[in-house]
């Protein structure tokens, strides 16, 4: 048990470290705004608005949060800093959805179908391939048989990039080379995963901007083709979002969900100065839970997102 405790603690420290910037920018400012205040007034709400907006939370969600806090503060006759912290925490936590079944399946794959097929999608440069490399390592480390599928056959050297991650994580990669039909790669990957009884198969796809209809249709096709081998595949459609992206992340979530029914989010580059506040709004609006967060470039720098830990770390606990 002691060993696992240590692991848990280390993970939490990593999360805290990764989120340090977010924490600093959010919490310290909130305390400052609160200093010497015994009630929520216009000036406080202005400060709160600035804090939320400059964390990429977005106009709509910010207004929503502020209105609710204003209302609750009047209803509950708020007094004091601690109560406000709790109020704020409740509100943010309420916006972060964690209901989807897929969010409950962790690296141990308890109760997961076998093989568990994950399809990874997103716009260019968000860190899809890196996320897959980290995922492969994590599943492999928890004793699972992992297969990768190199279905980004478009971007120069993308297949090579995934192969290198395969070598690093010590897992096989299905690759048919560049410029082949990505659906064919997906088909072969799922087939091999089924035939050879892999626990999990992760399929990489080319980055694409969500306003390109042709490319979005291609994603739908890749998904359909997988279903010819395994009718429920893919079990997890993971949309990777860059934490430094602004309000456009909403459109990304919307369009990718329309094309492929995204059911999990990964938020990458959270170790930057990026704030990632946009996920609060996305999670709230689309009811897609954040499942993974990337907090560094090492193989271990990917974690399963824990809502409570996240909110705790925002408030410095």
């Amino acid at each position, binding site marked *: 048990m002691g060993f696992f405790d240590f692991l848990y603690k280390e993970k939490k420290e990593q999360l805290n470290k990764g989120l340090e910037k977010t924490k600093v920018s959010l919490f310290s400012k909130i305390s400052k705004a609160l200093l010497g205040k015994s009630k929520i007034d216009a000036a406080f709400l202005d400060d709160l608005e600035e804090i939320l907006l400059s964390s990429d939370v977005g106009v709509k969600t910010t207004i929503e949060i502020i209105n609710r806090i204003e209302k609750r503060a009047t209803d509950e006759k708020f007094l004091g800093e601690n109560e406000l912290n709790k109020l704020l925490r409740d509100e943010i936590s309420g916006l972060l959805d964690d209901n989807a079944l897929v969010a409950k399946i962790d690296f141990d794959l308890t109760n997961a179908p076998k093989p568990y097929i994950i399809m990874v999608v997103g716009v260019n440069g968000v860190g899809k391939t890196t996320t897959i490399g980290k995922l492969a390592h994590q599943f492999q480390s928890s004793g699972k048989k992992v297969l990768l599928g190199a279905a980004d056959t478009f971007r120069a050297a993308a297949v090579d990039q995934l192969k290198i991650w395969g070598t690093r994580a010590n897992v096989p990669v299905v690759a048919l080379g560049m410029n082949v039909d990505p659906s064919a790669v997906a088909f072969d990957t799922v087939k091999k995963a089924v035939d050879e009884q892999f626990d999990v198969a992760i399929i990489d796809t080319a980055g694409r901007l969500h306003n390109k209809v042709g490319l979005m249709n291609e994603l739908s096709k890749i998904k359909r083709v997988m279903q010819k081998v395994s009718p429920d595949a893919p079990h997890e459609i993971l949309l990777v979002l860059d934490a430094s992206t602004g309000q456009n992340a909403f459109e990304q979530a919307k369009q990718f969900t329309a094309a492929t029914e995204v059911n999990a989010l990964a938020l990458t580059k959270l170790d930057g100065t*990026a704030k990632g506040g946009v996920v609060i709004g996305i999670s709230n609006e689309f009811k897609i839970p954040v499942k993974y967060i990337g907090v560094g470039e090492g193989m271990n720098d990917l974690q399963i997102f824990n809502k409570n830990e996240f909110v705790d770390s925002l408030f410095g606990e």
Partner: protein
Amino acid sequence: MFENLQSRLESAFKTLKGQGRITEINVAETVKEIRKALLEADVNYKIAKEFTDKVKEEALGQNVITSLQPGQLLVKIVNDQLTALLGGEVAEINLSSSPNIILIAGLQGSGKTTFTGKLAYYLKNKKNQSVMLAACDVYRPAAIDQLKVLAEQVGVPVYTDYETKNPVLIAQTAIAKAKEQGIKTIIIDTAGRLSIDEEMMNEIYNVKQAISPNEVLFVVDAMTGQDAVNTAQAFNERLNFDGVVLTKLDGDTRGGAALSIKSAVKKPIKFVGMGEKMDALDVFYPERMAQRILGMGDIVSLVEKAQMVYDEEEASKLNKKIAANKFDFEDFYTQIQQIKKMGNLKDLMGMIPGVGKAIKEIDINDDAFKEIECIIQSMTPKERKNPEIINGSRRARIAKGSGKDVQKVNQLMKQFEEMKKMMKTVNKMQSSGRNMRMGFK
């Protein structure tokens, strides 16, 4: 979720209507809406505030000229201010050294390597330069291979070294090689790095010190949110870069980061990335970016596109025909071909202000004209020139020939007649010197 700023401001402008002057009170609501629009476009919070304060100052006390509604006036002030802020002096890439050394820097995933390939293509094909690339991203798996593939596509040499893990050394060796071979321009691709990563920021600083580039370009994703300011400032402090490259602008982001960065570091935006192909690189147009941030559509681009395919002679011929009420199916067919030449229909419509968001959800078929073309092609030349002779039995034959229902043919005939009538009216108005007033609302 973003609406056209003009339509958004409409409700706010209701308070302004019928008032002769813009005053502190009646402008407040409007300024708030402008700020909201800027925030939704990812303009930095502080910069949006500064900007709207300035707009307010400018607008206060201005007489609302009768021909202009207060709203229009404000939008004009906003647009002018924004264009001025984004623009300033137009700065081309500096190619005055021999050899030219161009250093590329930016965050992970911003599009540095793709841009490096595009820049090589641009310099080689548009500026007649001999170009060599240097692969200094020694960290990301297969980054060197990626640059190699792009260099091959563009047809320029690339210097790689899989063994040396020292970017300074690789850059220096590449430059020495290029000099030996008499190559004019060397572009140094580097690894993506976070601005808060001291070690990596030191590394790129050292690369810069060692090679003294005459041009340092900061590559940034146009979709970046509030943090764009901090990142740009951090890179600028260490590298004092010469220009900014805004990538992935072919997406639907409003690109407020452009304004944030420009205001924060006062460096020109030199290029914009518009796609994944090697020729998808464009120079920066401040006024278009201003309109994009405000959600006003890229009407200028549309007009330019139209001008490109618009044949003046052809047009005057057509005008005469319309005036004489002789517009026929031949002309109609030619018109369709012209529209098709302008490109993807959805892209075109997206450039019209106000239309962009409305059609976003609709999947417009590029074959929208196919049915019409098909029916017209099933007409005899005589029928095309003399639409009035197309009677019932001819319609039945045309329907059969084109594989469509007679109703479809009837529908087209009716639309054609209506169009003809409308064209005649418009034509008359133009020739009598009256201009159609484009309604603002």
